[in-house]
């Protein structure tokens, strides 16, 4: 049986991922379309939030992906540092742009959603603030990748930054909760919707979450393939020149 680590061989990964790509894109996009169309056109307004409840189909999945993308990068960094598998380091590099885009979507849709309640476009609500902080961590991670020339050194340093960064991201999440209590006004509208989502809204939400997850998977797959192809071109040129 082909063990999971077999996929770690970059060239083999290229061959196998090309088979998975069409499915990932196809199912992902269709789930997304179903989820959004269903949620946007065929669900009633919420008695409290009116039609803004429709933003849930964007905010919840993107928020979910923003956090899970960083977690995936953390696991990939650990695999790279311990097992030295190129695919996992390059997958982490490919996941970062998708993660930062998801964080941005979560931020903007969160702010727009809260706007009618708060009357302003931005409020330092703990959840929104922690997404803003996560956005900064993504920026640092991408900046470090861009700043280093040698690919292996870059992979090592960004992996260590991701691990150390994760610890501080969790600390920041806790500190932000602590800091907003400090302002003596409780979190006005806490945006974690999972608990009080009525059934009628729930099914389309599942579809759009599935859509976002598969879209993330497809984008990271494509991104990793590009990184491997660039590294392969670099290796060929290294070998080519010395002939």
């Amino acid at each position, binding site marked *: 049986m082909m063990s999971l680590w077999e996929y770690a061989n970059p060239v083999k990964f290229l061959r196998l991922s090309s088979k998975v790509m069409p499915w990932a894109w196809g199912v992902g996009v269709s789930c997304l379309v179903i989820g959004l169309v269903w949620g946007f056109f065929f669900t009633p307004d919420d008695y409290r939030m009116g039609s803004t409840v429709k933003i849930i189909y964007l905010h919840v999945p993107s928020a979910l992906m923003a956090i899970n993308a960083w977690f995936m990068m953390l696991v990939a960094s650990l695999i790279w540092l311990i097992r030295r598998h190129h695919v996992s380091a390059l997958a982490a590099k490919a996941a970062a742009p998708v993660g930062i885009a998801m964080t941005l979507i979560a931020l903007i849709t969160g702010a727009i959603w809260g706007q009618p309640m708060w009357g302003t476009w931005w409020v330092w609500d703990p959840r929104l603030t922690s997404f803003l902080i996560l956005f900064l961590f993504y920026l*640092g991670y991408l900046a*470090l990748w861009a*700043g280093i020339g040698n690919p292996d050194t870059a992979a090592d*340093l960004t992996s260590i930054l991701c691990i*150390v960064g994760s610890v501080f991201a969790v*600390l*920041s999440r806790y*500190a932000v909760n602590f800091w907003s209590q400090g302002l003596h006004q409780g979190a006005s509208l806490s945006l974690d919707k999972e608990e009080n989502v009525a059934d009628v809204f729930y099914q389309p939400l599942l579809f759009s979450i599935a859509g976002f997850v598969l879209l993330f998977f497809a984008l990271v797959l494509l991104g990793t393939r590009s990184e491997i192809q660039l590294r392969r071109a670099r290796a060929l040129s290294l070998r080519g020149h010395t002939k």
Partner: protein
Amino acid sequence: MSALLVRDLKLAIRAGGGFGLALAFFLIVIVLVPLGVGPEMDILSKIASGVLWLGALLACLLSLDRIFALDHEDGTLDLLVTSPLPLEAVIMTKALAHWITTGLPLVVVAPLVAVLLGLPSNGYVWLAISLLLGSPALSLIGTFGAALTLGLKRGGLLLSVLVLPLYIPTMIFGSEVARRGIEGAGVQTPLLLLAGISFGTVAVLPFASSAVLRINLR
């Protein structure tokens, strides 16, 4: 290690060592705030503790990218790595030297400069205590960032982008201690958390930084 510490302190104090630069920067930043925000004392005193913490944090950041760069440029770093000194101890010593030349003076200077912002009277002692407890974390996280950006072209700027997000917990708890001290509310929780982060970074980050340094010197 003490020889390394003595050497670093000597270098910092000698001509061109840049000992007073971080403090001068801190003073300038604090002076700029009223010029930007306006002279009303009641506004300034409300934001004083946060601004003073931010100024101290930026002052620490400023003097960080030289921490390894000088030794890297003249080859001392390569020689230190191949010397009997464990690299983690070298990093701890470097962070300690940075703390002594930047962190500690800030703990003394900040309350003096706080007068400019009309910091309420009972805030001075808490500001000093919070800076004293928080600044070790600033030095060690900064040393980690300096190791990450060793030898990079635009290292200084990249260092700030990498390190500032890591400063967030320390800054939140630090300025919270000062703010609660002023309001007379219980400072115990933020104080313990601030100290916890500092001791955690002192214990763990040198190992991460030395791994990073070894990779960068490869």
